[in-house]
């Protein structure tokens, strides 16, 4: 079986697994304890923070460890909203955001916040002009993802960040960086981001670990209250083993980014070329993020395509994993102007750095076979 669902999650690095197990065994101390066990755990935590900060080119004091990107995004959005609600109660985000941003924003509307969900063009992009035009006097936060998790579309973060901060320096800028780091260059300072979310398990790290970059000077209303861990932004005993595992995965992903992108881009181009030769399929992306190819089989339920490919030994996904069990068509594709049929037939193929040329050969062959198989069924049905 070949796994092509790296955008959903990735198999952890073998070294990460060993490290996490080793630390669970040896350094189980609570990093907040006074004694040696605590001090040791605290040293590990500190080093993880330094390693993550170095990979992101920010200060260690700006890293808040969380349980993953869903928590990071919630902390960024709700934390900023609750903290700065006296400045205003308006948030700007995009209609194609990940559920953990989208739903967090929607939830805030129940608390009296107003949210502008910006539309995207047919390519899935939002422009700096659009963002700035949506900002009002009472806007406190703009939240935009780096790479779309379904289609691989890349938002022009540099343009948006620079334009936004030039006109509205007080509006906070949050970036959901989950699908971008390790695949594309990341420039938190250049993008003028105040908040930036990452998740470990998308980078071949362990699940249950993530981080939020909180620019120096930015305050957030903590969502978990309790101890003063993570500078008071996030109470709760830190999960030292998986956080160390995360720092290793982030470091490796950062170091290998250029090489990873080069190889993945080649594969993506091959798969995209193949999809283009199959008239039944409609390409929804494939020119931007190097690790995602997204297409629809209009009229065919995505699930059928997914299972057919699985029978042929290739694992792909429909929509994002976080919402793939819902029966509705993809919100992201609808926002990009797809019709219901297209939006219900979306298939996402996502690569990892350990794929080989041969894996791609198999994938392409399986695609061809699957389409032929389903096509004949279609004809028979007619």
């Amino acid at each position, binding site marked *: 079986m070949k796994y092509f669902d790296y955008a959903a999650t990735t198999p952890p690095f073998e070294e990460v697994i060993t490290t996490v197990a*080793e630390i669970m065994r040896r350094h189980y101390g609570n990093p907040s304890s*006074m004694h040696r066990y605590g*001090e040791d755990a605290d*040293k590990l935590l500190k080093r*993880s923070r330094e390693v993550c900060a170095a990979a992101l080119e920010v200060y260690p004091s700006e890293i808040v460890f969380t349980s993953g990107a869903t928590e990071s995004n919630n902390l960024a959005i709700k934390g900023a909203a609750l903290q700065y609600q006296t400045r205003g109660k308006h948030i700007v985000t995009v209609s194609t955001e990940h559920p953990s941003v989208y739903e967090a924003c929607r939830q805030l509307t129940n608390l009296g916040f107003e949210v502008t969900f910006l539309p995207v063009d047919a390519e899935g992009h939002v422009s700096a002009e659009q963002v700035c035009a949506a900002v009002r006097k009472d806007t406190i936060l703009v939240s935009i993802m780096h790479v779309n998790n379904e289609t691989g579309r890349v938002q022009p973060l540099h343009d948006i960040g620079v334009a936004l901060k030039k006109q509205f320096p007080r509006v906070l800028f949050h970036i959901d960086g989950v699908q971008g780091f390790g695949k594309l260059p990341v420039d938190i300072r250049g993008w003028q981001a105040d908040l930036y979310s990452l998740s470990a398990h998308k980078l071949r790290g362990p699940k249950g670990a993530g981080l939020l970059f909180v620019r120096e000077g930015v305050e957030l209303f903590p969502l978990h209250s309790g101890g003063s861990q993570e500078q008071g932004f996030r109470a709760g005993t830190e999960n030292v083993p998986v956080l*160390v595992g995360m720092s290793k995965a982030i470091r490796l992903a950062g170091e290998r980014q250029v090489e990873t992108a080069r190889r993945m881009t080649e594969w993506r181009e091959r798969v995209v070329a193949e999809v283009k030769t199959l008239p039944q399929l409609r390409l929804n992306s494939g020119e931007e993020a190097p690790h995602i190819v997204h297409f629809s089989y209009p009229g065919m339920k995505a699930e059928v395509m997914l299972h057919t490919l699985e029978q042929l030994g290739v694992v792909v996904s429909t929509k994002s994993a976080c919402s793939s069990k819902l029966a509705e068509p993809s919100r992201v594709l609808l926002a990009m102007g797809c019709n219901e049929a297209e939006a219900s037939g979306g298939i996402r193929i996502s690569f990892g750095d350990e794929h080989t040329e041969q894996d791609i050969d198999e994938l392409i062959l399986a695609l061809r076979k699957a389409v032929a198989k389903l096509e004949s069924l279609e004809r028979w049905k007619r």
Partner: protein
Amino acid sequence: MHYDMLLLRFGEFTLKGKNRTRFEKAVLNHVKLLLKPFPGASLRKEFGRIYVVLGGEPYEQIIQVLQKVFGITTISPVKMAPVELGAIIETAVALMRELNVTEGTTFKVNARRVWKEFAHSSQEMNHLIGSPILREFQALRVDVHQPDIELRVEVREQAAYIFSDVIMAVGGFPLGTNGKAMLLLSGGIDSPVAGWSSMRRGLEIECVHFYSYPFTSERAKEKVIDLARVLAGYAGRIKIHLVPFTEVQTAFTRTGQDNLIITLMRRSMLRIATMLAEREGALALVTGDSLGQVASQTLSSMNVIGRSTELPLLRPLVMMDKQEITEIAKQIGTYDLSILPYEDCCTLFVPKSPTTNPNLWVVQKIEASIRDLNVLIEQAVATTETLVLEAGGAIEGRKEEVIQEDWF
């Protein structure tokens, strides 16, 4: 943005005549040390300047590192072009494109023909390069007196250098060109600033820290090591001597002279630091004293405490306000560490009313009454642990049982 080199300019020491070569060498060595994490980058020295050839390394990060090098006053990122007018113009235009030219931005070209065989004179080049730029960027205006952008072009035999940005660096004297001193480093705000200020004047610094386990925690010690690591970011590497001070300190608590205990402690610290200085070849002690800040820093206290050493006692912050010191601490990146809430040995056993006016004769008499004080002091020196901290992480001289680098 794409740059090929960084141009580093020197500061006041270029006025120093014969010693200039020695100073330049010190800067060069310091730069070399800090460039270790960037293996692609290499150095080229020319008269009065250093160039860092980037070799694909990230220039912004390197600038950040080199801004900390004492003796360097400014840094310019440079683009290179072949010595051919067309290529020079093209590169100059490309550089302008990367600068933010808006309506009314003023500029001038300042060309220098260092290689006299080049066909166009400096004056000619100003025009030859200026006109295509003006054509390309309609919003630009020329101002030869106070331009927003001064585009500099240097034509040399091997290549033409094109640059405009001038980024401020820390200045001062190259590290170590004025000798070596021992810095008494506590976990507070002042002493790291005192250390940095001394380094900026060309002093090489080694740190001495006194800890009182179990009265102070391991974390207090770690915090001071972290502070020293920040200083190592400026020095490339730095030594820290960790002195176990508990025995000496507790000996004073038995004298029943509560209000003098700080005075007594400080004198012993200076004695220990002096012995370490002599061992390491340092010629002075540096402290973070600031006149009047606490009881041990009144003039009268300074007098009694200072007499315990024969080495010159340098107090770079002596006339500064707390606010000025805090500002510098923030700038050099020690402030956030300094305010971490771990007790150090100076805040321990602080009496209710420490004297601001100790009597030297009384102090000496108490010291004489502690039978084995000298032994305790010598023991403290003998059991001192020395670590070498490298800029960017590694710690030599310590058995790190907890951190295994291959975990990260």
